[in-house]
């Protein structure tokens, strides 16, 4: 357990007393480029050996699982407003599972690459491959998780990462003597399909009275939702809808006050 013990978190500044174990550190996923991914494991509050491993990925692309998943959503700690300390989240998912927050790809949060060009040419494929490499090597550091049931979860652009990593694991398992025990995936508000996501988004804006009939019809008639990049005319319609019709709202939660 030497490598594992080196990663043990003794305590975070301002952390309340807790009964669960925590570990964090780096796993190198590419020696040539010097790419290393950062993780934070918060084990279950009781009987962690009998509980599954749940990997959480945030989307973006380029956003941190530690910023969002761990610190705002499912993790055990919340940061106070002066950033001087932490308090407990009573609905943390580590009540029932061991949570592994992974910063992927390199360039997200504390994860890094020694090859700076890695930050300019990354994408879905490398994210999936590096994340798989991370999991395999992480298991070597934490062998007690090797036979454990694994679930992968996440939100937003992790609607790409989560299924892609699952597919990568299935391919790996087909040729491995030590398959990963992947059982399932769960994604929320997940980016899934360019065309239908865009169509459904404009439909939502109209059906929730966020945009006018005129803007709705213009968006539907002018924008080609199949395209990766919108035409200038379509872009300007999107801008008009957001700037002139949505108003000052939080688009991520339309009935909540915006964060100024």
């Amino acid at each position: 357990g030497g490598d594992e013990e080196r990663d043990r978190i003794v305590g975070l500044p301002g952390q309340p007393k807790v009964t669960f174990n925590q570990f964090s550190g780096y796993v190198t996923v590419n020696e040539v480029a010097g790419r290393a991914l950062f993780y934070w494991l918060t084990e279950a509050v009781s009987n962690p050996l009998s509980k599954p491993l749940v990997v959480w990925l945030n989307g973006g692309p380029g956003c941190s699982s530690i910023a969002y998943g761990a610190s705002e959503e499912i993790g055990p700690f919340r940061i106070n407003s002066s950033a001087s300390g932490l308090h407990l989240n009573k609905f943390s998912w580590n009540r029932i599972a061991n949570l592994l927050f992974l910063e992927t790809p390199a360039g997200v949060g504390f994860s890094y690459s020694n090859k700076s060009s890695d930050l300019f040419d990354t994408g879905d494929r490398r994210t999936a491959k590096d994340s798989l490499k991370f999991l395999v090597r992480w298991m070597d550091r934490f062998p007690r998780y090797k036979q454990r049931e694994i679930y992968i979860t996440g939100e937003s652009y992790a609607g790409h990462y989560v299924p892609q990593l699952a597919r990568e694991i299935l391919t790996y398992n087909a040729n491995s003597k030590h398959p990963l025990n992947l059982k399932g995936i769960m994604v929320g508000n997940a980016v899934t399909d360019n065309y239908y996501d865009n169509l459904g988004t404009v439909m939502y804006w109209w059906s929730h009275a966020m945009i006018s009939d005129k803007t709705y019809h213009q968006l539907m008639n002018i924008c080609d939702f199949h395209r990766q990049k919108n035409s200038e005319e379509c872009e300007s319609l999107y801008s008009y809808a957001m700037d002139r019709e949505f108003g000052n709202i939080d688009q991520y939660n339309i009935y909540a006050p915006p964060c100024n």
Partner: protein
Amino acid sequence: CTEKYAEKYYNRPDVQKALHANATKIPYKWTACSDILNRNWNDTEASILPIYRQLMAARLRIWVFSGDVDSVVPVTATRYSLEQLKLQVKIPWYPWYVKKQVGGWTEVYEGLTFATVRGAGHEVPLFKPRAALELFTSFLRGNPLPKS
């Protein structure tokens, strides 16, 4: 607004030391989202639906949920996308409950469960932590969401 607290906390040297992070002195500050990665993302699949078909064929448990007040990747986007999978309904549409209140609506298909979370934005567990934990519990147990 809480991501601003994270920006402060995770840039503290004592926090980084406790986390064994940034030992190599990364030449930029810790940020919640990397603009460089976001702007230079150059490999994205147009649709993930074919992967869902592969994962369902491998009999993985698949749950998809949606906070219904998010307008960035809203519930209608997810429903239009999932509709393309043309899945057989196993348990028809019903409201699910958490603490005697409607948590959202759900439908169980062959190979995939879909659930909405009422009143939750893009980050579902942030806005509806109790409902999100209920959802996660049912997912891990492989049970449909509670009907009462």
